[in-house]
């Protein structure tokens, strides 16, 4: 692997960039692997990387039915944060954020982590009380956060409508300074390149069509590129996880919904924070390229269509204008939708599947991107040790029957 650096870039610049090697190989699938990961998104690739690096398990394949990062990893709003309420979630997402902070140097790929600060607005007295509860919980969990007054917010986000006459006037809010955004494709490609360098086979255009059983144990997968046997199988297919589970003969507490995102035409620097407004149902940030990136709520019926409907778009954009009435003339350029795997309690599922030999990483709902490094790290640990990583002990499938839900959405009243 050629190390990426200013020097390699200069050297290649002098020779017409003819010497760059492939970021990852394009291998044909081998007949068997120690571990097969299904799903070439951020979670699957990060899992493969950490299996190789942390656990020395390098005989690993990542199977992707299309091109890596084509699912939610490349269709999100790139927000990273760890401002969670429950200690289980806080510890997990804080671990993810810390890994993000060092990811560029760790992976030798610039993931463009931009810790610009993430502000959650409070639009009523009740919201403000909720924010305080939140901040206090975060402090206790050792995570940076601070309450903001309306004046603080007006100073940081000058075009935000902070007037008391707004339909949902801003009463204050709270900020996680270390929250921000990262470049989603870079995260996918960075993990892919680093995993490939450690020997992981990344196999694209390889769709899983069934499972091979050895008695009750899943021992391999049938794919569009032949049968591939596996010592252990990790499923990290987000919105498609239920389809895979169905092939393996079990059901999951997941429903797949479309989640839309919208970007504007590029503007000169305008917003250097991530702003989340639960009352208007919208969040906004500005990308490195200058596009305003908007997100909102889920489309409210099950969908695998990777396209969104119009009412949600209208609601997100009107919510955005409630916050930023100066933006009415700015134009929406591009829209996309991811297929999110929504769980009842808005917390992920990492752990053993009901079928022996299969391990699950899913249930990220609308929050999978920010979790990628920790999702990969803990999933790799769970597969390698055949026992959950301590950070994800509470995120097993058994919690549903026990009633031990970690209900971030219920605790917050906002979508995650």
């Amino acid at each position: 692997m050629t190390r990426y650096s200013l020097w390699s870039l200069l050297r290649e610049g002098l020779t017409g960039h003819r010497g760059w090697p492939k970021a990852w190989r394009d291998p044909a699938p081998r007949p068997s692997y120690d571990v097969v990961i299904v799903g070439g998104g951020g979670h699957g690739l990060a899992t493969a990387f950490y299996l190789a690096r942390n656990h020395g398990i390098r005989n690993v394949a990542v199977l992707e039915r299309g091109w890596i990062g084509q699912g939610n990893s490349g269709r999100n709003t790139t927000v990273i944060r760890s401002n969670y309420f429950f200690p289980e979630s806080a510890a997990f997402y804080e671990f993810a954020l810390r890994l993000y902070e060092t990811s560029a140097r760790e992976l030798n790929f610039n993931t463009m982590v931009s810790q610009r600060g993430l502000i959650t607005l409070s639009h009523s007295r009740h919201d403000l009380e909720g924010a305080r509860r939140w901040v206090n919980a975060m402090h206790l969990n050792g995570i940076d956060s601070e309450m903001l007054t309306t004046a603080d917010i007006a100073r940081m986000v000058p075009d935000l409508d902070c007037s008391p006459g707004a339909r949902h006037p801003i009463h204050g809010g709270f900020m996680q300074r270390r929250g921000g955004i990262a470049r989603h494709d870079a995260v996918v490609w960075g993990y892919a390149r680093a995993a490939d360098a450690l020997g992981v086979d990344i196999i694209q255009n390889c769709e899983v069509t069934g499972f091979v059983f050895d008695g009750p144990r899943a021992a391999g997968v049938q794919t569009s590129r032949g049968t591939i046997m596996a010592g252990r199988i990790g499923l990290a297919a987000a919105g498609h996880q239920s389809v895979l589970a169905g092939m393996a003969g079990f059901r999951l507490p997941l429903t797949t919904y479309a989640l839309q995102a919208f970007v504007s035409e590029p503007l000169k620097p305008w917003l250097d924070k991530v702003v989340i407004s639960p009352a208007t149902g919208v969040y906004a940030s500005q990308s490195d390229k200058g596009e305003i990136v908007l997100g909102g709520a889920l489309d409210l019926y099950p969908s695998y269509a990777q396209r969104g409907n119009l009412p949600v778009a209208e609601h997100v954009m009107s919510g955005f204008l409630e916050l930023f009435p100066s933006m009415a003339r700015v134009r929406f350029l591009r829209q996309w939708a991811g297929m999110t795997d929504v769980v009842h309690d808005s917390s992920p599922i990492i752990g053993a599947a009901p079928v022996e030999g299969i391990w699950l990483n899913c249930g990220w709902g609308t929050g999978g991107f920010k979790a990628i490094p920790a999702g990969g790290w803990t999933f790799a640990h769970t597969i390698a040790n055949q026992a959950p990583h301590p950070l994800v002990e509470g995120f097993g499938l058994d919690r549903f029957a026990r009633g031990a839900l970690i209900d971030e959405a219920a605790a917050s009243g906002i979508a995650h």
Partner: protein
Amino acid sequence: MLLIACPHCGPRDEAEFVCGGQTHIARPGPPETTSDAQWARYLFERDNPKGLHLERWLHRHGCGQWFNVARDTLTHEVKAVYGLLDTRPDVT
């Protein structure tokens, strides 16, 4: 934008409706004979198919009635609309 033929009001835009998720789910009971696992399946597990999905819809901003819809989750094509207590239609 879906066009859904409410059995009571006729074709209406999706904005008037609310989707209630998978239909034909029997509520288990009585509680004392329902296992934790059965109950958890009722609460949380859903078919979540990529393709034909039988689901409940409510005409919230209309007649206020629930009814069933057979819809493709990939193409969003509405294949059939039928009554809440009707048996599942013969669609694929």
